[in-house]
């Protein structure tokens, strides 16, 4: 298949060999599962169970709230011991409401929704509902509710479902193993998703550094005309949605648009497998494959763990630490989040847990920028990190915004390559946060301003009306003192004005 050039990019040390040849192992259930109500982008789920409740495996224990949300399910049967604030796998280390489940050891399934025998004959809505009630979210890391993304086909004309098996992050091999071990499930899930999206074609993009996955997936897809496996060049960040779409289709997604506007929807391979389970067997998303790796991990592995397993148990399962890790990372080393501690649960979007040594991180104190320009050359978004960072250092966010800091995808290529070890992504994330805040503030102020103006106009109009009425009354009184007129009431304050007040 003809591929298209993607700008920039880097070739980091991939270090996948630590786990790429290790088959997926299932981790035994721990003594307690901690299932956060929010494991996705959007509104947190609402707990359906109370402390002390007995639940079964696969039972929905929290339902989705609002348009963008996802429910949570029990990964095994047992007793709800508490619903409490537990530290979330988030850099802040802040706590969030979490359901704590004590397994009873029986691992008894709840009565699951019936399998959809022939998903290609049912309408798209049935699949959306099934995916939504199964709690499936994007498993590549973004954790956007998949059902919402599957409804894009109802709004836009789609021609391609692009399945993302690029796995361009160093260390991570969970998608590689998944494709090698469950190729048929992934492809079936992808076809179901394509059907739900109304997309006639499925492309599965895999980076060339995964030859086994490419071979196995190609073989599994050989008999299906609508599915094609595409091997894409090893070039970080190939797995970035917009860049992958460009590499495979040549279409460049305009700023502030979605790839769906160009007819392409991208889903991760693990999401496809989850959809397969949900549709074919009625099974909700209650476990995921996590790559546990890094120089500090004694026995790196690809572990299938129940959602809610404590990361400390996961690391213990992989032999614990052989040396003290310098940094714990949730996800890949390029775009992953720093983990505040091991005392957090495995969530649906967690693709890797890395215990990295100082040598692997290879960071050093920041030096002055020597304007080598490498960041400009390698930026996959065509930005000028060198200029943006110098503006942001002076807190000149407006100029940084003009240079396109909001178009930065935080892929980390510039920080990785910088000879002066300037934390460029940190600057850009700061600027993006501040600019978002400023934007929100501005919109709020604008809204208040229009409301105040409208309010003033109404008061003026009312005053004028009153005056006119008074004048009319006076003249009427002069003409006939007996005449009475209803007093013109000033209009009742609208809801908006009340809010404003």
């Amino acid at each position: 298949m003809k591929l298209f050039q993607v700008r920039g990019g880097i070739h980091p040390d991939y270090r996948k060999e630590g786990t790429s040849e290790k088959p997926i192992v299932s981790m035994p259930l721990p003594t307690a599962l901690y299932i956060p109500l929010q494991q996705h982008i959007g509104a947190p789920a609402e707990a359906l169970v109370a402390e002390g409740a007995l639940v079964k495996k696969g039972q929905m224990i929290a339902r989705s709230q609002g348009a963008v949300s996802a429910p949570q399910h029990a990964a095994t049967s047992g007793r709800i011991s508490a619903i409490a604030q537990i530290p979330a796998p988030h850099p802040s280390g802040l706590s969030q409401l979490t359901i704590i489940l004590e397994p009873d050891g029986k691992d008894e399934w709840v009565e699951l929704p019936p399998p959809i025998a022939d998903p290609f004959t049912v309408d798209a809505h049935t699949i959306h509902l099934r995916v939504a009630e199964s709690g499936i979210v994007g498993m590549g890391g973004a954790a956007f509710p998949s059902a919402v993304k599957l409804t894009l086909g109802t709004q836009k004309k789609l021609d391609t479902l692009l399945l993302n098996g690029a796995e361009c992050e160093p260390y991570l091999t969970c998608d590689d193993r998944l494709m090698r071990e469950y190729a048929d499930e992934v492809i079936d899930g992808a076809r179901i998703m394509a059907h739900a999206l109304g997309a006639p074609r499925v492309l599965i993009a895999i980076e060339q550094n995964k030859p086994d996955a490419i071979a196995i997936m190609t073989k599994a897809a050989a008999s299906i005309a609508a599915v094609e496996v595409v091997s894409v060049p090893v070039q970080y960040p190939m797995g970035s949605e917009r860049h992958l779409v460009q590499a495979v289709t040549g279409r460049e997604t305009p700023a502030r648009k979605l790839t769906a506007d160009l007819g392409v929807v991208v889903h991760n391979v693990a999401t496809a497998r989850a959809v397969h389970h949900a549709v074919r067997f009625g099974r909700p998303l209650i476990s995921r494959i996590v790559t546990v790796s890094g120089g500090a991990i004694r026995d790196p592995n690809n572990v299938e763990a129940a959602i809610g397993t404590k990361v400390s148990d996961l690391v213990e399962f992989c032999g614990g630490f052989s040396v003290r890790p310098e940094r714990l990372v949730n996800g890949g080393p390029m775009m992953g989040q720093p983990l505040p501690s091991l005392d957090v649960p495995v969530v649906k979007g967690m693709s890797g847990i890395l215990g990295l040594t100082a040598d692997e991180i290879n960071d050093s104190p920041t030096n002055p920028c020597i304007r080598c320009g490498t960041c400009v050359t390698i930026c996959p978004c065509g930005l000028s990190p060198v200029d943006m960072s110098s503006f942001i250092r002076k807190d000149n966010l407006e100029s940084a915004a003009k240079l396109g800091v909001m178009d930065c995808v935080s892929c980390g290529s510039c920080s990785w390559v910088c000879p002066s070890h300037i934390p460029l992504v940190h600057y850009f994330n700061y600027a993006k946060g501040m600019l978002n805040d400023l934007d929100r503030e501005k919109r709020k102020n604008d809204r208040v301003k229009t409301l105040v103006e409208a309010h003033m106009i109404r008061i003026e109009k009312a005053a004028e009306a009153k005056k006119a009425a008074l004048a009319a009354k006076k003249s009427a009184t002069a003409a006939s003192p007996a005449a009475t007129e209803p007093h013109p009431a000033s209009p009742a304050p609208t809801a908006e004005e009340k809010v404003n007040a």
Partner: protein
Amino acid sequence: MTLATTSGPFTHKANSVQKVMTTVLLALLPATAFDIYLFGWPALFLFIVTIASCVAVEAVCVSYADRPAKVSLSDNSAVLTGWLMAASLPPWSPWWIGLLGAIFAIALAKHAFGGLGQNVFNPAMVGRTVLLVSFPVIMTSWVLPHPLFSAGAPSFADAIAITFGGHMPDTVSAASALGYVKTELSRGIPVTQSMAQVAQVPDLMDMALGYRAGSMGETSAILILFGGLFLLYKRIISWHIPVGVMATLFLMGTIFHLVDPARFTTGQFHLMSGATFLGAFFIATDYVTSPVSKTGQLIFAAGVGLLAWLIRTFAGYPEGMAFAVLLMNGLTPIIDQYTRPRVFGRSRTGEPLPLTKEKP
């Protein structure tokens, strides 16, 4: 374990400012070592004095700015500046030329602008240029090659007298090829004739190998090319600036030579003489003072080549590389501003791309 909240990435390329600078020094070594051999002890003394002065001035400036001197000195940027300036000096210049140059280069051109990465103009070239306009005689006193340990080469004691005693023997001076052609031209002798004087002007092969009069690090085009290719291989520099500078210079030389051979020297002559190779591979490619984007670098390089040719051909100075680089340094910020890459998903003007399914 680091718990401080910070953004990724949590892995970095094995790269540092120090590594970059040291690689450039390594690339300079063959050409400079050859010239030190060629011009003997005085060249070595001046080389050491210049670099030591640069490091000392850097230390003073950094301490004055209350920054840790050890960190700044360990990046080797002052050594590189000193080395490049020494490479552009006549090899038998007195010691104070190196010291004065170091003060202008490091204190004035670099630290007055804010230190490493902040300077607009190439420090080594500022140093050299200030010296050239202030001490034109010394700065154009070229000597013919006197290889170390050869007959007629200054002894260690002679060298001390030359570098530190100011005893420049006037019998050994020679014109550089560029200077000779220019002087002859001003006397009404056409280029065709002066270039034919092989007795005075070394032939192009000698010039390429470096067996000729010239600055301390610039005579051997081949060894500089070797170092430049090493930098390209190490990806410290890209082809854009060296190729841009040399192509423009060669093109200008060739075209005008074809038009009027009596007035204009050939493209090859421009390439092989003076500081062309050193300038193209090591001076114009200075990160801090050249544009960051590849398009910008090509424009910058064409400007350097064009200005160098103009100055060599029409201005009062026989060599124009340093001036050309400095002039284009001044334009770097504006070149940068107009040559930023197109942002993904946006047009050149910054508007989001129109929604089409076709390739833009």
